[in-house]
């Protein structure tokens, strides 16, 4: 039984409540951080641990924090990105709803590390239940002097506010999040300047994912060397893997980085529903290139997946079996990206919507010769040309689905219909 870090106490009844949480190492990390370390030390500890961003980009957290200027005349802000919107991803949902204090602890320590006194949790508007739980937990944290003025008498002040989103995937992009927090449309900003230099309300800002921040208390309490004992050399720690789609046991699985995708699907996920055949797997949330059933002997960590031509992303694994029409699946995803495009920049706004229309037309049996080359060329004109990475996110599925399942697309075009025996019924697992 592997040791868990983030989900260690997830099944303890009422762990969301302060009195229960405190009985399980609760807020000891905060006490240690504020009592025994200087902010610079915290950054070094997190750097040494090798903790990488768990939101999708995988940027080393400690390094990101070190970019914050020590002597800014504007306030430093910390934003917790809880706008979990990447299809296939639901781990932050679980962390916030089941163990909110772990996140709050992580925020306090991280804010301390970068000299921040005002932090926000940007939580997506659809997370009603996690929001209620967090509100209560934050209230408790204030009551117990873990937030507010002079925390634990150590002279550190921190205010934490919950900011509720209103339905926009692109608000999960770090600068889209900042715009939304500032009361505007969640339209991503040009970079440079980067948020660490000019961020929220023009002050230096750190934006971290829920899972990333939730790891911080454990790194402080048990030390970076202990953390490095999990996972691989370049992808340390554990990861919350999400399993969804045609899987027998969907859910969040905390496992060390580097576990094989095959193991994840069959050993932990219980294999495919109804014993059917695996057809395709998206390894890290919808923006990551798809893998075929022959490609699942890959380790789930940042380097290995990159070498395999895809990405770890948010580790939201979407499993598709033989009853899936890949064209239909792609039409579904391109519709998602077209709907979520903020509309600011031309290639994403026009190009992604164009791709949605073409793929849908192919799915309906009205595809034409040349459509696939056209789709790939459109991708080339979007790739790395957009203002923010969402254009590239939308391409992930398009390029990989067409490349790896080309014959299926061609069959649709040539036959003028979908040749797959689809099953779109409710799976209702026992």
């Amino acid at each position: 039984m592997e040791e868990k870090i983030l989900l260690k106490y997830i099944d303890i009844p009422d762990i969301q409540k302060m009195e229960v949480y405190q009985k399980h190492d609760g807020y000891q990390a905060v006490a240690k951080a504020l009592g025994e370390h200087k902010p610079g030390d915290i950054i070094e500890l997190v750097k040494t641990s090798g903790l990488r961003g768990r939101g999708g980009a995988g940027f080393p957290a400690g390094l990101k924090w070190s970019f914050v200027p020590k002597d800014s005349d504007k306030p430093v802000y910390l934003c917790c990105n809880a706008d979990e919107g990447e299809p296939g991803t639901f781990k932050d949902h679980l962390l916030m709803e089941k163990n909110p204090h772990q996140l709050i602890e992580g925020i306090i320590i991280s804010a301390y590390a970068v000299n921040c006194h005002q932090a926000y949790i940007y939580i997506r508007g659809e997370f009603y239940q996690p929001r209620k739980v967090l509100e209560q937990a934050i209230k408790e944290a204030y009551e117990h002097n873990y937030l507010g003025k002079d925390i634990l008498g150590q002279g550190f002040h921190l205010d934490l506010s919950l900011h509720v989103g209103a339905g926009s995937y692109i608000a999960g992009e770090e600068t889209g999040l900042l715009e939304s927090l500032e009361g505007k449309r969640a339209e991503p900003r040009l970079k440079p300047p980067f948020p660490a230099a000019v961020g929220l309300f023009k002050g230096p800002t750190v934006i971290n994912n829920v899972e990333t921040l939730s790891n911080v208390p454990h790194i402080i309490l048990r030390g970076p060397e202990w953390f490095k004992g999990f996972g691989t050399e370049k992808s340390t720690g554990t990861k919350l893997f999400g399993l969804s789609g045609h899987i027998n046991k969907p859910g969040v699985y905390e496992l060390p980085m580097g576990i094989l995708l095959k193991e994840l699907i069959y050993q932990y996920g219980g294999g495919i529903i109804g014993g059917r055949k695996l057809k395709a797997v998206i390894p890290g949330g919808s923006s990551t290139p798809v893998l075929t059933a022959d490609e699942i002997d890959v380790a789930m960590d940042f380097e290995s997946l990159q070498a395999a031509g895809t990405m770890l992303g948010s580790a939201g694994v979407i499993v598709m079996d033989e009853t899936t029409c890949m064209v239909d699946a792609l039409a579904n995803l391109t519709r998602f990206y077209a709907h979520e495009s903020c509309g600011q920049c031309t290639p994403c706004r026009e190009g992604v919507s164009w791709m949605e229309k073409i793929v849908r037309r192919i799915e309906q049996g009205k595809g034409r010769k040349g459509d696939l080359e056209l789709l790939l060329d459109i991708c080339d004109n979007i790739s790395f040309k957009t203002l923010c990475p969402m254009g590239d996110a939308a391409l992930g599925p398009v390029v990989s689905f067409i490349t790896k399942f080309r014959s299926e697309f061609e069959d649709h075009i040539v036959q003028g219909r979908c040749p797959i025996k689809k099953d779109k019924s409710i799976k209702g697992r026992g």
Partner: protein
Amino acid sequence: MAVEFSPQAEKKFEETLERYPNKEAVLLPVLHLAQQEFGVLSDEVLEYVAGLLALPPSRVKSVASFYTLFNIKEVGRYVIRVCYTLPCALNGAEEVMEHIKKRLNIEVGETTPDKKFTLLGCECLGSCNTAPVMQINDRHYENLSLEKIDQILDSLE
């Protein structure tokens, strides 16, 4: 202006102002508050919000129309949002949608004549492990089956 915050909403508004360094940043929280108070973010409500925050009404509507959860058009008492992004689609979202359409006798995007239900499709709700999923107002309904859907709809006044 017929539109105005109730004393409780006014109090919440004041509290919210303290958590942000300027009035412009309070726009999203205030729009949420206004939607709770007035049900729909009609042009009248948007103009009221604009006045509260000293923002031009065009900006307020520009922001409100960007976000999916803000209803700027009339909706029923219960807004049903059925997730239809890939993981839910793989687990029967289409069946869920068809079932509700038939039961309420409306198309996606429409409201029942008695103004009770509005049916909408929506993108990933971040709960893919419990697919298929739908939201009605501020509640999640997970692991849906046709029977569950019927029970839920029956239970709503």
